[in-house]
C-alpha cells in the first residue's frame, strides 16, 4: 500500500533526509505544494513508507537530480503569457535601449524557453547584440536543455500564436531549424547566453542586471524564503532596473517593498528605485 497522504512530520522527515544525504534543503518551501510534489514522487516510486524513500536515496536508486526534477521542475513555454512579453517590449525595452550593453538574468530559467523568447524579441527590436543573458537554475538537467536550445517541433508549432501575441513581427519558424521531430533554435540567439547552476536560496548575487525575470519561482517558497529571495533579486538589480515576477506572485508583504515601484500591476513588472538607503 502506497502512502496516500503526508503529515507535517512525514514532510519534515523527507526534508531532513534530503538535506543530510543530498545537501539539498527544502525547508522554507511552500509546505502544501511541497507535500503534493513529494506525494506524487512517492506514488510514482511506490514507496509504502518514508523509510523506503530514505532507503532508495541512501542506496543511490533515487538520485539527487531525480528528486530535484520531481520537486522543482517548472512548467515553461515559449512566450508563456504573451501579454507579459508584449508589455516588456513596451515598458522595459526603451530603458534597455539607453545602454551600450546590458545584462538580463533569468533566475530559475528551467529549460530556457523564456530566454529564447526574449532573445527573439530583443533581436526584432535591434537590441540582441547589446544583450548578455544569464540563465540560472538549481537543476543542472534542465540547464542542459536550455543550453542546447533544442525543443520538440510540436511544441514550437503550439507557440507560434503566442509569439504573434507577444508582438512578434515575423514567423517563429524563422528562428529555428526543424529536423525530424526536433527544432533547434538559431545559434545567433544563444550567442549571448550564459548558463550556470545557481540556488536562489543559498547562493549570493553574482552580478548587476538591468532586467531580472523570475516568474513562477517564488510560488515554491513560503513567506520567509520569498523575502530572502526577493532581497537577493533586488540587490542584483541595477538602479532603475526592472524585475518581472509571475502574475500571481506579489511583493506586498516584502519587508523592503519601498525599494521597488510597481510599474504594471497585472503583469507584475517592478522597477528598482534609484537610491536605497538602509
Amino acid at each position, binding site marked *: 500500500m502506497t502512502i496516500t497522504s503526508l503529515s507535517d512530520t512525514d514532510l519534515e522527515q523527507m526534508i531532513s533526509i534530503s538535506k543530510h544525504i543530498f545537501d539539498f534543503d527544502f525547508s522554507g518551501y511552500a*509546505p*502544501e*505544494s511541497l507535500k*503534493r*510534489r513529494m506525494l506524487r514522487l512517492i506514488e510514482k516510486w511506490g514507496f509504502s513508507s518514508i523509510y523506503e524513500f530514505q532507503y532508495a536515496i541512501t542506496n543511490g536508486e533515487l538520485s539527487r537530480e531525480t528528486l530535484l526534477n520531481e520537486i522543482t521542475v517548472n*512548467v515553461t513555454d515559449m512566450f508563456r503569457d504573451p501579454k507579459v512579453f508584449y508589455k516588456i517590449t513596451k515598458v522595459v525595452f526603451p530603458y534597455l535601449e539607453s545602454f551600450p550593453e546590458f545584462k538580463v538574468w533569468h533566475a530559475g530559467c528551467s529549460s530556457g524557453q523564456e530566454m529564447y523568447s526574449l532573445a527573439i524579441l530583443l533581436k526584432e527590436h535591434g537590441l540582441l547584440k547589446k544583450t548578455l543573458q544569464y540563465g540560472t537554475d538549481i537543476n543542472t538537467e534542465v540547464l542542459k536543455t536550455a543550453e542546447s536550445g533544442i525543443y520538440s517541433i510540436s511544441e514550437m508549432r503550439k507557440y507560434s500564436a503566442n509569439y504573434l501575441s507577444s508582438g512578434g513581427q515575423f514567423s517563429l519558424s524563422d528562428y529555428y531549424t526543424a529536423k525530424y521531430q526536433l527544432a533547434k533554435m538559431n545559434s545567433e540567439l544563444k550567442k549571448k547566453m550564459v548558463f550556470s547552476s545557481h540556488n536562489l536560496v543559498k547562493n549570493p548575487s553574482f552580478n548587476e542586471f538591468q532586467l531580472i525575470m523570475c516568474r513562477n519561482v517564488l*510560488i515554491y517558497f513560503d513567506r520567509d524564503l520569498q523575502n530572502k529571495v526577493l532581497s537577493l533579486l533586488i540587490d542584483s538589480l541595477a538602479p532603475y532596473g526592472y524585475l518581472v515576477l509571475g502574475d*500571481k506572485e*506579489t511583493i506586498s508583504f516584502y519587508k523592503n517593498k519601498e525599494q521597488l515601484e510597481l510599474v504594471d500591476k497585472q503583469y507584475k513588472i517592478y522597477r528598482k528605485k534609484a537610491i536605497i538607503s538602509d
Partner: protein
Amino acid sequence: MINKIIIIGGSAGSLSAVLQLVEKCPTDFEPPFVIVVHRGKNDQNVLLDLLASRSKRPVIEVEHYDHLENGNVYLAPTDYHLLVGTDHHLELDLSEKVLYSRPSIDVSFISFAKVFKENLIAVVLSGANEDGAKGAKEVIKHNGTVIVQDPNDADVDIMPLRTLKINPEITKIVPSNDILKTLTEASN
C-alpha cells in the same frame, strides 16, 4: 478566526449558478467563499470582473501566500492548483493538471478538507467531467458537508451525477436557487 468556510467547484455550465450565489450572498455573511472553477486560458479577467460587479463582498483573485479572511470571496486563478495550509495561508501550485484541469477541484477540495474538516462546506455545481467527485469523498471523510446542484437543474449534469454516484450518502441535492439557503443552514 474562520469558523466555517465554503468551497465551490464548477465547470461547464456553472457560471450562472456561481454568479447567482455570489450575488445573493449578503454583505454580513461571514464564511469566506473559495471559488474553484475551470475556465479558458483566455478568460483573463472576465470572471473576476463579473464576480466583482455582482458580489456585495470583496472578491480577490488569489495570489501566492494570501491569507484567508472572513467575509471575502476568493477566486482560484487560472492555471494554478489552489491549496491551503494549516495556518490558513493559500498556496498556488504549478504541478501537472489533474483530470486535464488546473485548477483541479479535487485537489482543492482535498486540501481544504484536511485543514477545515467539519467546518468545510463544499458545493459541486454543473460540469462536464468528474472533477470534484473524489474531492467530495474526502470532504465527507473529514466530516465536512457536501451540497450538490440538482442534476436536473444543472446545465451539464455529469459532474453532479458523478459526485452523487461515488458518494451515495450525500442528501443535500438542491437547485441553484436554493444553494445559498442550504449552505446558510449548514453553516449555522
